[in-house]
């Protein structure tokens, strides 16, 4: 897993260098610290990163990736899942820049996302007051889950190279019926797998790999 992220980060750095042309105004890497805080005491783990590039005056092209895990451990069920995901999309700024260095934006955006999910064997127990309990095992399984997201939020510069911002996301899974039996308790990048739709938010802290004046 570590190798996977080192490779992705190198790819992002390489891409940012390759894109350092006149058309590219800014490249930024971000990490979602909200998920790290919210899930500190939870069985759900969710690590999310984003790389975005401002190619035009008001459009950010975005690549997001991450991984996570979850587990269910109660008196009736015991199993765990892990997944990694990627998302591509763009954000469209709704604000006109005040000056050539103004990159604070309120935006709406779209993401296309996909995740590879692995579920361990599931150990279950059924309890009947008269007949007693029955224990059993459900085989492990792998899933491929695509979804799309509609989102909105803000991104602002808090220091010359440091940015912060949040997003609200409405997520719609395309083949949720595959989770009719023993779904993941949580899908990193998506949220709860109980429903085909999910509502989520992120709070990002970002670092600008490079930034140019909007007018150049």
């Amino acid at each position, binding site marked *: 897993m570590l190798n996977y992220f080192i490779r992705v980060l190198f790819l992002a750095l390489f891409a940012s260098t390759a894109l350092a042309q006149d058309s590219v105004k800014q490249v930024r890497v971000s990490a979602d610290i909200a998920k790290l*805080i919210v899930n500190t005491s939870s069985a759900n783990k969710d690590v999310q990163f984003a790389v975005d590039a401002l190619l035009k005056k008001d459009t950010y092209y975005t690549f997001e990736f991450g991984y996570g895990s979850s587990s269910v451990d109660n008196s009736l069920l015991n199993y765990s899942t892990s997944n990694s995901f990627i998302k591509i999309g763009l954000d469209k700024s709704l604000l006109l820049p005040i000056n050539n260095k103004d990159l604070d934006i309120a935006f709406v955006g779209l993401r296309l996302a996909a995740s590879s999910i692995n579920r361990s064997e599931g150990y279950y127990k059924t309890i009947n007051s008269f007949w007693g309990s029955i224990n059993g095992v459900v085989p492990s399984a792998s899933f491929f889950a695509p979804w799309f997201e509609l989102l909105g939020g803000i991104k602002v510069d808090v220091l010359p190279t440091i940015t912060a*911002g949040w997003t609200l996301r409405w997520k719609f899974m395309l083949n949720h019926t595959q989770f009719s039996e023993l779904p993941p308790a949580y899908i990193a990048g998506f949220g709860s797998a109980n429903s085909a739709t999910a509502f989520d938010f992120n709070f990002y802290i970002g670092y600008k790999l490079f930034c140019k004046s909007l007018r150049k």
Partner: protein
Amino acid sequence: MLPPLTKCFFYFLLLLTFYSCSQDTNTCLQPIDASLRLGSYKYADTSHKDSLLPNPMIKVIGDSIKTWVQNQKNSSKFALTLNPKADSTKYMFQIDASKVSTDTIVFYYSRSLHFVSVACGYTYYFTINKVASTHHDLDSVSINNFNVTENATIEHVKLFY
């Protein structure tokens, strides 16, 4: 005017408050046992109508015998449990607990494991294949619906007295 970082911080706290109100998915709040539902009837010309049993007693026979229905005077609807560890379950029926006469009914079925939810886990559904009975007080038995699920509105078997 607040600096951008302060604004973001307050927005973040607000969102965190909403997020913390999300539903607890680890608590099972629904009945999950699939019960076999019976109704007692008597023939009336070309149709049939509910037949209230005066003082019914129903016992389920497993490794032990347990009285399942008792002191439900003038009842015609009953919910029984099926053994998820076997393909048949046997019951003893008395239409009046003060009388000696009893009937034995055996329900034959196939079982299927059904996932309910992460909080509630699994339960068993049943498909009734056959019902066999004695006929001391009981006239006949008919299967009204073969599929026994958690749906509590369906009557599966009709008992005719």
